[in-house]
């Protein structure tokens, strides 16, 4: 395949240096969840970087500058595209990289380059832009079903408020106990809050960002930010780690200036409410629970202590930890929009999470991400090991 544009076109300057700085040591493989389920070196992070280096040389190297853009083996491009989309983008490789390559941001940008070349995305991911453009969410579900099936009747939504809650598409359509728990906790804290009407609460853009399909992003971000700004929002609360990640890291870039409000994860909101006494946990729970750090919440935006603070505030609860936790947490298999395409990988990774929770003798596995919640629940169907799975706010809302 002859190139018509530079392979570095979609990369940030820092990322071009990162591609070059990989020492190919292979240390990251010990932390890659894909390698945990099938040892295919083609999907290994250093192999992806090695392949991309070849692509870069073909368009940006000295030879290309002197004699024109080079030829790239189509098979190599095909292998690379599959490898970069099979990744869950959890970022554990980068967290443990001896050089410190920020892979959680590098892989999505490499996907973007593949999309621009017509090679990505893979499978149902290609339907995302149309689904989001048509219905406002990646599941192509009607807006009227966004809140109605789970929204608690007793909770009142203000027209305007300094605090807003964003449910997110995966929570609203695929992990409803989770978003119901969020709303109940916010209601119990006693502070008025607002929400956008269901037809206005569109996708945050993360599924498009993570699959490299950036065309609609700016429009989505502007619609949402302007919607909250019009309601005088100063703090936007959300429980989906992927949503809060793109909101805090990328929305300001697409908006073109700092956001007119702060982004807070629901556990940050709850931890503050517990500390200030606005929220009180009345019931105890005599169980050992284990908390799974969502990759985009821990490694992505550094929210690690607050979920633990919330859980520790529950009387009688014993908090266990996975071997890999906090910044070093292991992906449950749902990340990177790979769960709908590489279903078997996601199920195998989900089962590893369940197995470790059972091995640690946890009575309950606590999750804090709607994608994790949907996929780990799916992974437990037909699995030998069984454990109760509960979202953190679902748990708290039952004890207040």
């Amino acid at each position, binding site marked *: 395949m002859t190139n018509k544009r530079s392979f570095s076109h979609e990369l940030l300057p820092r990322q*071009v240096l990162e591609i*070059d700085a990989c020492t190919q040591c292979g240390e990251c493989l010990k932390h890659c969840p894909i390698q945990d389920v099938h040892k295919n*070196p083609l999907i290994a992070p250093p192999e992806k970087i090695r392949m991309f280096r070849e692509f870069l040389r073909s368009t940006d190297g000295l030879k290309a*500058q002197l004699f024109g853009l080079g030829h790239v083996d189509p098979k190599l491009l095909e292998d690379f595209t599959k490898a970069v989309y099979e990744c869950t983008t959890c970022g554990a490789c980068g967290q443990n*990289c001896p050089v*410190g390559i920020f892979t959680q941001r590098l892989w999505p940008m490499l996907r973007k380059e593949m999309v621009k070349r017509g090679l990505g995305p893979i499978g149902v991911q290609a339907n995302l832009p149309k689904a989001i453009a048509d219905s406002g969410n990646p599941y192509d579900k009607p807006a009227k079903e966004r809140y109605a099936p789970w929204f608690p009747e007793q909770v009142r939504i203000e027209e305007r408020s300094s605090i807003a809650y964003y449910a997110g598409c995966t929570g609203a359509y695929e992990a409803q106990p989770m978003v119901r728990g969020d709303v109940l906790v916010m209601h119990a804290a006693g502070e008025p809050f607002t929400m956008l009407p269901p037809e206005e609460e569109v996708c945050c853009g993360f599924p498009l960002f993570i699959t490299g399909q950036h065309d609609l992003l700016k429009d989505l971000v502007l619609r949402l930010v302007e919607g909250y700004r019009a309601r005088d929002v100063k703090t936007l609360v959300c429980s989906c780690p992927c949503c809060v990640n793109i909101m805090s890291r990328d929305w300001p870039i697409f908006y073109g200036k700092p956001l007119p409000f702060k982004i807070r994860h629901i556990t940050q909101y709850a931890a503050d409410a517990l500390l200030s006494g606005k929220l009180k946990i009345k019931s105890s729970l005599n169980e050992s629970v284990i908390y799974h750090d969502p990759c985009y919440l821990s490694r992505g935006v550094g929210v690690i202590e607050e979920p633990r603070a919330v859980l520790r505030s529950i009387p009688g609860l014993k908090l266990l930890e996975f071997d890999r936790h906090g910044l070093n947490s292991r992906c449950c298999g749902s990340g990177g929009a790979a769960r709908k395409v590489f279903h078997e990988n996601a199920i195998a990774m989900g089962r590893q999470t369940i197995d470790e929770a059972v091995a640690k003798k946890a009575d309950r596995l606590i999750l804090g991400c709607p994608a994790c919640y949907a996929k780990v629940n799916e992974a437990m169907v037909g699995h030998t090991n069984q454990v109760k799975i509960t979202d953190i706010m679902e748990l708290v809302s039952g004890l207040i």
Partner: protein
Amino acid sequence: MTIVVITAVYAAYIVFWARFLMHALVWWRAVQRSSPEVPAPSSIKACALTFLDSVLFARLFRVDPALWFAEWSFHASLLLVLLRHLRYFLDPVPAWVWAVQTPGLIAGFLLPFTLGLVFAIRSSRRDEQYTSRPNMILLLLVLLLSVKGLVMNLWLRPNLVDVKLFVLGILRLDPSPLPAQGLFLIHFAMALLLFAFIPTHIFTAPIVMMEARKRQQALRLVMHDE
């Protein structure tokens, strides 16, 4: 023969610079583009930690202490051996180069063992399925170079005056006759190969390490108030 070797030396020199310029061109084109990303703030702590990462391989220590020991010992030994070799390239030889002669000699004895340790640790890891062939070839090259260097030091010592005159002649573009010893020739040819194909990550990795430290320090600011 002398002409062939001298041509090879200058060819290696050209290959090194061509490779460096090729990479520099890629870096240059990249940094020319504007980045929408707000750079993480720099700090003295980030600089200090980057220094530890670059010089002591602190990040590797955190993820794999056994491999860190092997890799750091290998790189430190190699550095001392290279510094010891500066006596062939400088005239007069500065005092600090004389000062590293004994540590460099000790490092020369350690170098093959540290490399052996790197190979042993890597091959014993069942969970590491990835092997970079160019990396392995380079490590093998350094291993052979270090063994040959030891053999020359202990048993088949070349005429060091001839070696120095030859090296200085190349640097001054006024070539001297090639030292008459086969093993030296092989050692020298392999060193040229290593020089020409030295991994370019040694230039970019410290920059990426600095960015990683700055990012690590700024992580808490993404969703927390200062």
